[in-house]
């Protein structure tokens, strides 16, 4: 354990990021993109990949520079580093996958303001060596990703009757009246609320016996 109580071992970092301090259902960070890009599973997968890339590398970079960066301008430097990685993702998507870039619209650029990215740089990257910072960013982004994928799976199946664009049995057929609300933003609110509730309940029921 480091001075501010953050874990340093890879296993502890993984548990912390994926479960104990999960950015979505525990810290409730980065919700704007959770609501916006989860209507199709494919969009969500790409968004999550972009976030994993950005969070882990920017936390590691912040960590590399931590001993040289003056404290009073550290947030400027962090924003710069985050923007750097996000622009790279954006340029790559524009060059090699323009239709996906069009689907995600402004949300790739908005990763810069995603609270999880700066949160990890500030809470961990700033005060730990690069290797740990990379892992911390990586597992937090994975913690974000798996919740997003759960939300997206339900939204696409219930709202569009498909999964990854492929029609699903029953849900894709005429017997299923598609829940249009699920592909619209309010559907994400409901789904996210339910997912946070379920996961917090599981978390609590697991923690209580210990007390």
């Amino acid at each position, binding site marked *: 354990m480091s001075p501010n109580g953050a874990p340093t071992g890879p296993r502890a970092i993984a548990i912390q990021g994926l479960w104990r301090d999960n950015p979505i259902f525990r810290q409730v960070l980065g919700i704007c993109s959770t609501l916006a890009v989860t*209507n199709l599973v494919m969009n969500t997968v790409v968004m999550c990949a972009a976030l994993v890339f950005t969070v882990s590398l920017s936390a590691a970079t912040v960590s590399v520079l931590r001993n040289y960066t003056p404290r009073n*301008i550290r947030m400027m430097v962090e924003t710069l580093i985050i923007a750097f990685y996000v*622009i790279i993702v954006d*340029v790559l998507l*524009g060059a090699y996958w323009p239709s996906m870039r069009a689907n995600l*619209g402004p949300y790739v650029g908005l990763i810069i303001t995603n609270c999880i990215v700066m949160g990890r740089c500030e809470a961990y990257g700033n005060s730990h060596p690069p290797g740990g910072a990379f892992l911390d960013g990586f597992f937090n982004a994975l913690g974000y990703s798996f919740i997003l994928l759960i939300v997206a799976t339900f939204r696409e199946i219930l709202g569009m009757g498909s999964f990854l664009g492929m029609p699903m049995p029953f849900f894709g057929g005429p017997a299923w009246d598609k829940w249009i609300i699920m592909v619209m*933003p309010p559907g994400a609110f409901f789904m996210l609320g339910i997912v946070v509730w379920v996961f917090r309940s599981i978390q609590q029921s697991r923690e209580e016996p210990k007390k």
Partner: protein
Amino acid sequence: MKLMRQAKFYPVLYMFVVTAAFSTVVIGFSSLTRERVAANERLAFERAVVAVLPGLYETGLRSAQIHQRFVEQVSEPDASSGDAFTLRKGGQVVAYALPFEGQGFWAPIRGVIGTAADKRTVTGIAFYEQAETPGLGAEITQPAFRDQFKGKVLAREGKPINLRRPGTALGENDVYAVTGATQTSTRLEAIVNRALNEWQSQMGSDKAQSGPYSLTKSLGPISSSDPGKQEAGQ
């Protein structure tokens, strides 16, 4: 080093150096992919043109096939077609594809509208650049909205095409607007009509046989400015 880090100018210098370093990499990166990005944009346009011309488009066409069809079958705009790209069979124009562009709700909307050889029967509409609100204004790119245009007949007088409130009765040049996206709909209507009016007046000169319509045609652009005025009041 320690002495330098205590200096007052250190944070400024540091910020300059870090910014310069990261910017250099980003600039290098984007110039490496610039050609590819330009080719993608060109392809998006070609895809839209191919999509509105009858008989050219099938779902599932790959980018290379789209490009091939465009190059082989679509003619660039010339004096006889105004601003419109044309599809010709045996020298005869079979259909026109007129590009249009204008300011949408958030960003420019760019697209193509296709008409048959009579310049009035719509064969399709497609968009190759837009950033309207996802789920609302961006629905204009969905088949449900675009398919409405097929077979509509552009009006000779007034606005060539109207976007009506959903649920009202439709005439031969009316389609339903997108619910919840009034701004996008009114702007799109104005953009498309402005392009069509300009095109009609360009083509008007070689259309001497349409004598009775020449007067109303020349009045067309005036009435097309109405949507713009309404927007300002919204």
